[in-house]
C-alpha cells in the first residue's frame, strides 16, 4: 500500500509540477520581452546579430511564393551577415496562411514576423494584440526611405504607432495575362485583343477548340476561393458595381447590391466559359501557384493573376511569349474602375516575439538592404516602395505594362479607415456570410450553382443584415463609428478619390 501511495504521489507531483514549471518558463520569457520593450532607448546600440549575443531563431511566415528563390537567397545572405540569427521561414498559400496564422496566434505560437492576413483588418489585429509597435525598433532614417504616403494613419498606423509595413507598391491582381502564341493561333494579336465579355468568351472557346485537349482557353487556381472573390470584386467594379475590399457595402450608396447587373454579368461570363468547357480541366482542383505553372507551360490562353507572376514566368519559363491586358468589360462598355487600394499593411512583428530587435533588423535588411528590393524589382515581381529602386531596376516590359494598365483601369477608392480611423473596429463584430461571392463563383464554374442571381440576392440580403448588426454591436461596445463613415456620396467610380474629396465630406 505504501508503495502504491508513493507512486501515486510521485505521479501527481510530476503531472502538476511540470505544467507549473512550464508556466514559470513562459512568465520568464514574457518578462524578457518586457525588458526588451523597457530598454527601447538602448535598442539602437544593440546588434542582435553579432556573434557575442546568444543564438536567436527568427521565425518568419508569409505567402510570398512568387519571390521564393530571391527570398531564400536573401535569408542566406542575412544569416551569413548575422551568424547568430537563424531564419526559420515558412511559406504557405494565401488560403493556407489565413487559417494557419490564426491557429498559431490562438495557440500562442505566432511567428516573430508575419503579415496581416488578407481577411483581417489591421485595426482588429492591433486591438487583439497580435502585433507590437514598430517605432521603437525602426528609426525615422529607415522609414524616410519609403515613398511618400506609404504609411497612413488608420491603414498602417494607429494612434501614432506604426504596426505594419506594406510589402510592395499596391497593384490590383485581377489583370489578365495571355499567351501570345495561342492567341495568335486563334486569330488575335496585341492590337486586336478581346475587350468585351462576348469577345473574351469567344476567344477562350476558340483557343480551347484549337487545343484539342492539349491546351485550353483559361486556367485558374479554383481551389482558392479568395482568387474568385477578387475576380468578381474587381471585374464587376469595372462594370460599375462599386464593390471594394474595405467594406461589404457599395461605398457610394451604402447598399448591398450583389445581385445587380454588373455583378451578375461576371457570373454569366464565367458560367458561359464553363459551359463552353473553356476552363482547363484541372482548374477546380488546383491552387493559384499551380495554375500559374500550367499557364507557364503553355496549357492555357488566359489566366487572371497579379504582377508577381511575371518574375516567376520569366525565371521558370523563359520561352513563354506572353502579354498582359485589362480584364474584359461588359458589351455595353466600362462603367467603373478597379480598386487601387493605395498602401496596404503587410508585415509586422508579433506581440509575443522574444526577439523584436532581430525581427526589426530583418525588416531593415529586407527593405533597405543591398539585395532583396533590387532583386525583386529586377525579376519583374513588383514595384518597390523604397525610393529610387524602381527607376533603376524596373526594366521588365510586362511589369511596366501591368503598371500602366493598372493605372489606366484602376482608381483610388475612398477608404473608410482614412475618414475615420476607428471605423475598422466594426469588423470585429462583422460575421462573414457563406457562401460568399468567391465561393458562389467557384460553384458556378464547377456547375454546382445554376441560379446565381437568386443566390446573390440572398447573399445581398444576409450581408445587409450582418452589416447592420455589426455596426449596432460596435456602437454598443463603444466604437466611435457611424453607418455614414462607410458611405461616400461624392465618389465617382471613374475618378480617383482625393484628400479634397475626404475634406468635402466634413
Amino acid at each position, binding site marked *: *500500500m505504501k508503495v*502504491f501511495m508513493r*507512486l*501515486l504521489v510521485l*505521479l501527481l507531483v510530476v*503531472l502538476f509540477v511540470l505544467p507549473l514549471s512550464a508556466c514559470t518558463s513562459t512568465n520568464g520569457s514574457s518578462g524578457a520581452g518586457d525588458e526588451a520593450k523597457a530598454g527601447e532607448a538602448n535598442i539602437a546600440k544593440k546588434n542582435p546579430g553579432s556573434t557575442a549575443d546568444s543564438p536567436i531563431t527568427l521565425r518568419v511566415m508569409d505567402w510570398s511564393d512568387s519571390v521564393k528563390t530571391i527570398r531564400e537567397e536573401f535569408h542566406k545572405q542575412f544569416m551569413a551577415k548575422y551568424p547568430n540569427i537563424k531564419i526559420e521561414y515558412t511559406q504557405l498559400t494565401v488560403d493556407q496562411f*489565413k*487559417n494557419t496564422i*490564426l*491557429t498559431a*496566434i*490562438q495557440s500562442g505560437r505566432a511567428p516573430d514576423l508575419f503579415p496581416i492576413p488578407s*481577411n*483581417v*483588418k489591421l485595426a*482588429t489585429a492591433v*486591438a*487583439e494584440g*497580435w502585433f507590437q509597435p514598430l517605432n521603437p525598433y525602426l528609426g525615422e532614417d529607415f522609414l524616410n526611405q519609403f515613398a511618400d504616403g506609404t504609411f497612413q494613419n488608420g491603414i498602417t498606423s494607429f494612434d501614432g504607432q506604426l504596426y505594419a509595413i506594406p510589402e510592395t507598391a499596391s497593384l490590383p491582381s485581377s489583370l489578365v495575362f495571355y499567351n501570345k502564341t495561342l492567341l495568335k493561333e486563334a486569330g488575335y494579336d496585341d492590337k486586336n485583343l478581346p475587350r468585351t465579355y462576348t469577345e473574351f468568351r469567344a476567344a477562350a472557346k476558340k483557343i480551347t477548340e484549337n487545343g484539342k485537349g492539349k491546351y485550353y482557353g483559361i486556367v485558374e487556381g*479554383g*481551389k482558392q476561393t*479568395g482568387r474568385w*472573390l477578387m475576380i468578381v470584386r474587381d471585374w464587376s467594379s469595372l462594370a460599375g458595381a462599386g464593390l471594394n475590399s474595405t*467594406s*461589404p457595402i457599395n461605398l457610394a450608396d451604402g447598399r448591398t447590391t450583389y445581385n445587380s447587373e454588373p455583378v451578375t454579368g461576371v457570373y454569366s461570363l464565367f458560367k458561359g466559359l464553363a459551359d463552353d468547357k473553356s476552363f482547363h*480541366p*484541372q*482548374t*477546380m*482542383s488546383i491552387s493559384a501557384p499551380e495554375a500559374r505553372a500550367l499557364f507557364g507551360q503553355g496549357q492555357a490562353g488566359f489566366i487572371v493573376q497579379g504582377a508577381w507572376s511575371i518574375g516567376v514566368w520569366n525565371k521558370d519559363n523563359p520561352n513563354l511569349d506572353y502579354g498582359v491586358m485589362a480584364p474584359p468589360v461588359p458589351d455595353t462598355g466600362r462603367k467603373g474602375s478597379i480598386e487601387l487600394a493605395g498602401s496596404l499593411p503587410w508585415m509586422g512583428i508579433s506581440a509575443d516575439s522574444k526577439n523584436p530587435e532581430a525581427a526589426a533588423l530583418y525588416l531593415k535588411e529586407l527593405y533597405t538592404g543591398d539585395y532583396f528590393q533590387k532583386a525583386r524589382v529586377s525579376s519583374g515581381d513588383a514595384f518597390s516602395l523604397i525610393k529610387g529602386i524602381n527607376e533603376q531596376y524596373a526594366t521588365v516590359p510586362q511589369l511596366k505594362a501591368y503598371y500602366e494598365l493598372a493605372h489606366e483601369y484602376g482608381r483610388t477608392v475612398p477608404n473608410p479607415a482614412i475618414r475615420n480611423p476607428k471605423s475598422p473596429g466594426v*469588423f*470585429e*463584430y*462583422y*460575421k*462573414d456570410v*457563406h*457562401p*460568399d461571392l*468567391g*465561393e458562389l463563383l*467557384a*460553384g458556378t464554374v*464547377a*456547375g*454546382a*450553382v445554376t441560379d446565381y442571381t437568386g443566390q446573390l440576392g440572398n447573399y445581398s440580403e444576409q450581408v445587409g443584415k*450582418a452589416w447592420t448588426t*455589426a455596426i449596432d454591436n460596435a456602437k454598443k*461596445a463603444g466604437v466611435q463609428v457611424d453607418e455614414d463613415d462607410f458611405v461616400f456620396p461624392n465618389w465617382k467610380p471613374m475618378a480617383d478619390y482625393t484628400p479634397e474629396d475626404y475634406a468635402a465630406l466634413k
Partner: protein
Amino acid sequence: MEKAMVGTINQRAVSGTKAKRNRKALWCWLFVAPNLIFYLLFQGWPIVINWYYSMLDWSGISSNATFVKLDNYTRLIADPYFWKAYRNSFIFMLQAVPPLLVLSLVLAATLNNPLLRFAKLYRTLFFIPVIATTSIVGMIMIFIWGADGPLNYALSKLNLPGGGINWLSDGRTAMYAVIVTYIWKNLGMNMIYWLAGLQSIPRELYEAARSDGAGHFRTFYHITLPLIMPIALVILLLNTAGALKVFDLIKTMTDGGPFFATDVVSTYIYRYAFSSEMGVPSMGYASAAGIFFAFTIVILAVLQGLIRKAVLRTWGGDNS
C-alpha cells in the same frame, strides 16, 4: 465455541480478501490514472468548456466574448449549409463503412488462410497506406484523381468509361473519389482488426466442421460469423465514429468542395472556427456546431449499443 472460531476465521478471511481486492483496485487505478488525468485535461475539459463556448459570440482570437445563450444554435439550425454538411457526413459514413468492413473482412479471411503463401508480405502491403500520413495521401490522390492523372489515363487506355471525368472538380463524383480513397487508406487497419478476431477462433472448430463435410461458406456462416460478431460490432463502432469525424482527407483532397459537395461537419466547423473573409472567425458558432454534431453521435452510439445487445442475443454470443 467452534462456531465462533469458524465465524472469526471466516471474518478474517473475508476482510483479508477485501483488503486484497482493494489493493488490487488501487493498483488498477494507479495504472489508469495517467491516462485518465490526461483524458480529463485534454479531452474532458475541452468538451465541458466547449458547451460554454457554444453559447458565446466569440471569435476565438479576441478577449471580447458576449454570452448569447442559444443564439448560435438557432443560427446553426437555420443554416442550410450546416444541414448539407451534416447530411454529407452521414452520406460519407454510410457509403464508406459498409464496403470498408466487407472488403477488409474478405481480405482478412483470405490472408488468414494458413495455406496462403507470403501472407505476411500481403498483410504488410495492405497495411502500408495506414501508416502513410493522411494529408500526404490526400495530396497524392489529388494527382491520381486529377483530370489528366494516372487514373483517367488508365481508364482511357483501357477504353473504359470515365476517362474524361474531373473526379474531384465535379460535384457528382468528388464524394465518391474521397470515399474510395478513405476505404483504401483504412483497409489495412480494419484487416488487422478482423485478423485479430479470426485468429482467436480455435482451429479445431474448422477441422471439426470440415470433417463433418461443411464447405467454406457454411463454415464461415455457422462458425466464423457468430464467433467474430462481438468484435465486428466494436469494429463497426470504431469505423462509424471515424467516418463521421473525417477531416484531414477531405481538407486536403477537396477542402469540402466543389461548392460544398464534400463539405462535412468537420470542415464546416473548421471554416467557421479558423477562417474569415472580412470579419473575424466565429469560434462560438463553430463550437455550437461541434456540440450539436457530437450530440447526434452520442445518440447513435447509444442506439448502436442497443442494437449490439439485440444482435448478440440473437447470435447467442458473449454478451459481455
